[in-house]
């Protein structure tokens, strides 16, 4: 068996997040693999539908809840179209975990601010649950999450669950024009809302993931709030194939995103050529 041969996983749950976004819950078929499998928040995998190919997504479930893994994907290409066809009980392939991770253990005792947009909540959600499952080890938690419209918000049930908890501040927003008459949350772009929420940067780190334009405008807001570049973490989306630093596709500057990333600090990103 080579490094390119996936493990077989069974789809045990299918959850429609939005009209074009879906979560899958996957269980390793091989018992020994299921027992032995471990990963860190932020790592990714290659998910495959045999006949369509492999696609790269982060593992969206937290390592604190072993037994099954979850991924969340948007319908964009050939593989995601095929993934949408799979149903509970079907077999797909998984290779991973690959890449580096958010240094969650180093953040013990610190405040953590989560900033996410659209489907970018998936990798952040992995960290959120990881930290909520070890809540005592961390300081204040703030989540600022937004999507284009109410319909485009992913993990809607969990957003309500987080909003109902008193040990985490959860602010959910939709872009202007994306609200419905029933919408009770905020209306405004994520960077603007982030500036309004204004979480303290003292002894804090930020985790940010979302569309490039959201990231671009959120960085200056975080900077203004006092977050140092090496206290801001993000995860890069890059076209990948092998996931193990061989195929050359995700190479930017001297970095192989699949090995040196996908998690980077803002400080590291600023040193990279803008080829992502």
């Amino acid at each position, binding site marked *: *068996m*080579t*490094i*390119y*041969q*996936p493990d*077989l996983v069974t789809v045990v749950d299918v959850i429609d997040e939005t009209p074009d976004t879906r979560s899958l819950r996957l269980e390793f078929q091989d018992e020994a693999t299921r027992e032995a499998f471990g990963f860190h928040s932020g790592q990714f995998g290659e998910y*495959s539908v*045999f*006949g*369509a*190919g*492999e*696609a790269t997504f982060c593992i969206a479930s937290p390592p604190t809840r072993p037994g099954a893994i979850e991924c969340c994907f948007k319908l*964009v*290409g*050939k*593989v*995601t179209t095929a993934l949408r066809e799979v149903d509970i*009980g*079907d*077999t797909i*392939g998984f290779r991973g975990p690959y890449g580096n991770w958010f240094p969650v253990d180093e953040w013990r005792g610190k405040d953590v601010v989560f900033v996410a947009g659209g489907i970018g909540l998936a990798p952040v959600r992995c960290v959120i649950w990881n930290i909520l499952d070890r809540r005592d080890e961390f300081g204040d938690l703030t989540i600022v999450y937004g999507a284009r419209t109410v319909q485009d918000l992913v993990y809607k049930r969990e957003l309500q669950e987080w909003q109902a908890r008193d040990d985490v501040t959860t602010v959910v927003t939709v872009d202007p024009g994306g609200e419905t008459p029933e919408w009770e949350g905020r209306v405004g772009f994520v960077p603007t809302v982030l500036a309004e929420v204004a979480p303290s940067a003292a002894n804090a780190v930020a985790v940010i993931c979302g569309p*490039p334009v959201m990231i671009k405008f959120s960085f200056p807001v975080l900077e203004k709030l006092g977050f140092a570049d090496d206290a801001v973490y993000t995860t890069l*989306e*890059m*076209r990948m*194939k*092998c996931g*193990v*630093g*061989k*195929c*050359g*596709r995700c*190479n*930017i*500057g*001297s970095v*192989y995103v699949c*090995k040196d990333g996908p998690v980077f600090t803002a400080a590291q990103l600023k040193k990279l*050529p*803008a*080829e*992502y």
Partner: protein
Amino acid sequence: MSDERHADELYLTEESLTRLVDELLTAGTEVIAPAVTGSCASPAAIASAACLRPGAAPELIEYAALHDASQMALGRGLPNLSLKGFFLPQEEALVSWRRRGTGLELRGPRVDAPSRIALGVKPCDAAALEIVDKVMNWDTKDELWNGRREATTVFTLACPVEDESCFCAAVGGTPDGTRGADGLFTPVEGGYMVQATTDKGRAFIDSHLAAHAGEPAQSDSLRRQAAGFRSAARERIAGHLAIDGPAIRDWVAANFDDPLLTSLGIRCNGCGACTSVCPTCHCFDIVDEPDGVSCGTRRRCWDTCQTGRFTSHASGHNPREDQNVRFRQRINHKFAIYPLRFGEILCTGCGRCTRVCHAGQDLVEILSEIDDAARRGRPAVTADSDGGGEG
């Protein structure tokens, strides 16, 4: 350079080499060597306009798994493609699947390859193997590559230096090199002087080659002849190109947006022929090929950073939209990224990319320009120049 390291050379006549290869083939051992794969004598001659000219007799030389020893064409020029396809094939199966009811069965390829021997390999092609070993073995190990590497005993053939596009010496190689190989052949009158440089090479000589080797009366003079061939080639290549590899590495890494680097690719058509013929370009794609609805094969195949498809996301976003930045990536990967990451220049100076480029992109010229900029520590040309016209 002293030729003491060649003191235990054996003499192998052309006829003995043919017998040795025949013996290996009869025993079922795969023998890879430069061979004439197409010539004006073949039925495919209609294909070649050159063949139809009066008196024309061009040959096409490729590395091939020999059917018989007569195909062998050692020392008759640089094979069109490098040796890499024998280690990273143009396409190969990674896994095949078959549906059984609701379940699925996967089958991977064999990773242990039967022993084989490669003869007459250009030193630049052998060196590439050792350089690419690095990326195939950092952290995770590519079993398919490694399996073929372990199974193959490689003998280089000292190269006379093909033409003005060769520059192995500028990137740490030498025309009589054995890097990535297990021994060296040097052409002499009537045959070759042969020497092993690794245990694997010595084992091959002891078990197969030694029986065919002779100890002719004139062995001293043959040794001198071989040494003369090698030193002449080294002198020849020394005049081709001299660059400061570490300076280029640091300059390219630090000056990513320099107009020199973004203007180098202006006449590049993005055809990817350079990456196909390159012994060190190793980027690949992974594709699924269904065979009906219930089974199929996942394959990897050569890919090229010179097409837009290489980096385009499913969303349509492409971080390298233009050809000039794709060309920069090729230079950057070979002369900065790989050296920084693996301590090796991802180029052995074989010159194939220059020869195959019909748009006139010339790596010797390009490296000279970057070297010039690196040594001076500032851009060599302005944004609106194309960076050409050295001659």
